[in-house]
């Protein structure tokens, strides 16, 4: 069931690694490389479940996202997902599998197994840190902007849709910009937006730890964490303010663009 997906992820890993190397972007998305490389190697090694630091210092997103928030969010929440995952997989059939394989296997067609929440949250947070950068925000450029304009009508329309998805995710969860490719499903879940055409950008939201990997055909380019712990110390109940300022001042469009390049290389 997962073979097809694994092969695709492996291709993605390779493409991503090559592209990052070629572009000298090693500092932009280092752990994204290791996610996918881990998968490519088929992986007998388990040492990769480690707490990866964000690619900037913990005070680098001040005053928008405070050092205090990152000390808890990365230093406590993310850390406990990693620690708990390690404990959960030791001595089980998941031991030795890559993070992506654990996520897809333990999603178990929606009837989730115990390791899913921790595994997916480790992946989500690694991904999320790279979606931000000091002095971020603004608009993407190049192919990503062109695709956004093609698939949403304009950058502003995309931005409104993304913000609305993040604001209306009931309870804890995530909003995503993802590339929906064609029919690569892992047979793991129902297509969340079956009426959409394939091979286009889409906005999605997901509850709790769920991420687009479980849907198979979706390649995430950007995410925002809308668990309350992501913004409560800085914004309290004002989730919409957090979402707006994330878009205006934090988003790393470089990281999203480099992910798009990898997806294109993969599915070409």
């Amino acid at each position, binding site marked *: 069931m997962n073979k097809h997906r694994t092969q695709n992820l492996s291709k993605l890993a390779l493409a991503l690694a090559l592209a990052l190397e070629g572009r000298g972007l090693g500092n932009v998305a280092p752990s994204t490389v290791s996610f996918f490389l881990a998968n490519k190697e088929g992986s007998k090694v388990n040492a990769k479940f480690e707490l990866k630091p964000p690619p900037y210092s913990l005070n680098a997103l001040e005053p928008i996202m405070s050092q205090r928030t990152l000390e808890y969010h990365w230093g406590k929440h993310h850390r406990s997902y990693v620690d708990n995952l390690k404990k959960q997989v030791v001595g089980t059939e998941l031991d030795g599998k890559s993070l992506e394989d654990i996520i897809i296997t333990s999603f178990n067609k929606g009837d989730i197994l115990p390791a899913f929440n921790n595994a997916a949250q480790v992946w989500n947070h690694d991904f999320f840190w790279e979606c931000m950068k000091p002095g971020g925000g603004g608009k993407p450029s190049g192919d990503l902007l062109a695709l956004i304009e093609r698939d949403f009508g304009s950058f502003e329309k995309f931005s409104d849709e993304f913000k609305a998805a993040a604001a209306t995710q009931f309870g804890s969860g995530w909003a995503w910009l993802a590339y929906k490719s064609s029919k690569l499903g892992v047979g793991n879940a129902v297509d969340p937006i079956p009426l959409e055409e394939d091979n286009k950008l889409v906005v999605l939201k997901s509850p709790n730890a769920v991420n687009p990997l479980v849907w198979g055909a979706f390649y995430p380019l950007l995410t925002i964490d809308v668990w309350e712990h992501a913004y409560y110390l800085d914004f*309290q*109940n004002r989730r919409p303010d957090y979402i707006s300022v994330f878009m205006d001042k934090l988003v790393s469009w470089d990281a999203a663009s480099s992910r798009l390049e990898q997806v294109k290389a993969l599915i070409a």
Partner: protein
Amino acid sequence: MAAARALFTRKTLPSSSSMLRNPKPFMATALTSASTTTTHTRGLQTFTLPDLAYDYGALEPAISGEIMQLHHQKHHQTYVTNYNKAIEQLHNALAKGDASTAVKLQSAIKFNGGGHVNHSIFWKNLTPTREGGGEPPHGSLGWAIDTHFGSLEALIQKVNAEGAALHGSGWVWLGLDKELKRLVVETTANQDPLVTKGASLVPLLGIDVWEHAYYLQYKNVRPDYLKNIWKVINWKYASEVYEAESSESTA
């Protein structure tokens, strides 16, 4: 439009006149507490934020005044506002015979209506320590807890364990299953009310484990919040609901 109004009035929003006729005045207050704070606008019954029976700072040090104020004035208010919006949209959709809009509104109604119902119960589940908060239940509820869980301490441990294990946002409940006549501990996700876990379940005690309920004070350490909240739990209220519901179920 009349049909829509009748549906609301009969099924979900008992009118104040029917409450006055209710032979069990306590139950009217306890279980339809939301209806005590309704107002009528253009023929549609809407909701307002209920007052708390204590000051925001009165639950300190178990729960800080800052948390209580934000939780009540901002979070609960938002559920009330959005629930009112959703039922007004539903009202209009039903009046126009627009079934697909009516269906589309269900998730917002469940989330925001559930948020209002759950928080209205939660405020009653709390009381300052100096006014009896944390004082163990006596009478039939105390006896039932011992019977079903072994002891109050065992129940507290079970609630704390299930509340801590809930991934994401939600609630942990002590409920009465009126059909099986037994106490149950259940969790619900997001703002799902206890009744979503079974039509015969009545909430006696609900603890909010959304991060907004504890984050400013306890940060990531939800178990400490759960440990401390028992110092301000209003067991008298839970006992009264239990007794009223138990006698009703055997009547």
